[in-house]
């Protein structure tokens, strides 16, 4: 169950300057748990220490925002694209 995590430029330094990395798991939460083992500095910029998506991080699975409901329960898997973006709400000052 491998998805592609597509990264904004600001986060690529934590992924060896790659624009995307593979993440493995059947749900978004499992896939980010896998990321936390391999690239912990990248994962903790997406989720806080309680495993919750940071307030100003947007994620889209195959183009659909996961903000509402239980984001970490979102099914992901082979062929899925998980797109990460900084929300404009986080861009104060």
């Amino acid at each position, binding site marked *: 169950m491998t998805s592609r995590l597509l990264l904004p430029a600001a986060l690529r330094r934590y992924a060896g300057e790659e624009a995307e990395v593979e993440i493995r798991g059947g749900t978004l939460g499992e896939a980010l748990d896998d990321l936390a083992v391999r690239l*912990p*500095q990248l994962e*903790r910029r997406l989720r806080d*220490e*309680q495993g919750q998506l*940071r307030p*100003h*991080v947007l994620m889209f699975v195959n183009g659909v925002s996961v903000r509402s409901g239980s984001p970490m329960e979102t099914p992901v898997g082979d062929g899925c694209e998980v797109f990460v973006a900084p*929300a404009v709400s986080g861009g104060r000052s």
Partner: protein
Amino acid sequence: MGLAILLIGTRKGLMIARSTDDRQTWAVDDFQFLNQEVYSVALDTRQDPPRIFAGVGTGHWGPLLTYSDDLGKSWTEPEEPPIGFPQGSDASVDRVWQIQPATDQQPDVVYAGVEPHALFRSDDRGQSFALVEGLWEHPDRPKWTPGGGGACLHTVLPHPTNPDDVLVAMSAAGVYRTRDGGATWHPANRGIQAAFLPEDQRFPEFGQCVHKVAFHPDKPQRLFAQNHFGVYRSEDRGDSWTPIESGLPSNFGFALVAHPHRPETLYSFPLQADAERFPPEAKLRVYRTEDAGANWEPISKGLPADPYYAAVLRDAMVADRGDPAGVYFGTRLGEVYASRDDGDSWSLIASHLPDILSVRVAEIA
């Protein structure tokens, strides 16, 4: 004095200024942590090499606590998250407000004060921090409220000779003190008024909006506190407080700095009022007392004469350990002023920066 390092944390990055001529001139490096807020900085000179810490707010990507062992040329972020609440505690670190190396007797201990109200302690010189459970589990905590800047633990004052005695200050929870190394804590606000509460509730046990606490290491029983309306002195390490504001133009402000060698001398930067956060009369002046708050004098030599409408935040004023002492402050207008004569006169050493959040200084041997 050899190399003096001045850390300038701003709303949009960190600048490091260096002086090699006894603080007469300063060279300012390029910005680091571009477009990221640097709320807290610290210079830990207890071991060699000295370590610089920065508490960086990365905006979208959460807080970062990082350090440099080469005076800011490169920065280290540990693989494991250096700071965070235990899983299941239903809290996450929003901002690192304060990084405070402990005393010389504990060269590996570093404290961090964060938002929401919590204290963390590192026993490995800042590689990893653990929550101080005694404060986090305090029965008062559900009643603590955030100040205007947030629910921040912004001041940590370890006793200079007794490692078990640590004092913290939080907005708007007040001052708390432990005498057993952090296991238990008790509020230390008797005599401090919470002027924003109803008249019959203005001297609560806790809930005051303390903005900064300072003390001189030779006299750790004597504390000074700048509150949200009120400047106070304690002679019993926080058991009781008395006002020392009668000689000041206002009892509102944030920054408060003790002189490095004279326990009677203190520097303040008063603001007109909480709804008028400008220097009184729009005059950029530092206020100094040399008798522990009985009398205050404004100092303006070398400071702009034109009207000045920017404040100085709680961690944006500091003193070095030189003799005479250097005193430094950064304004929300992005200017840094320095004095190398105990505050008698000032000069501008950096300008046109983003608003300044934190300033720290140290001499490097």
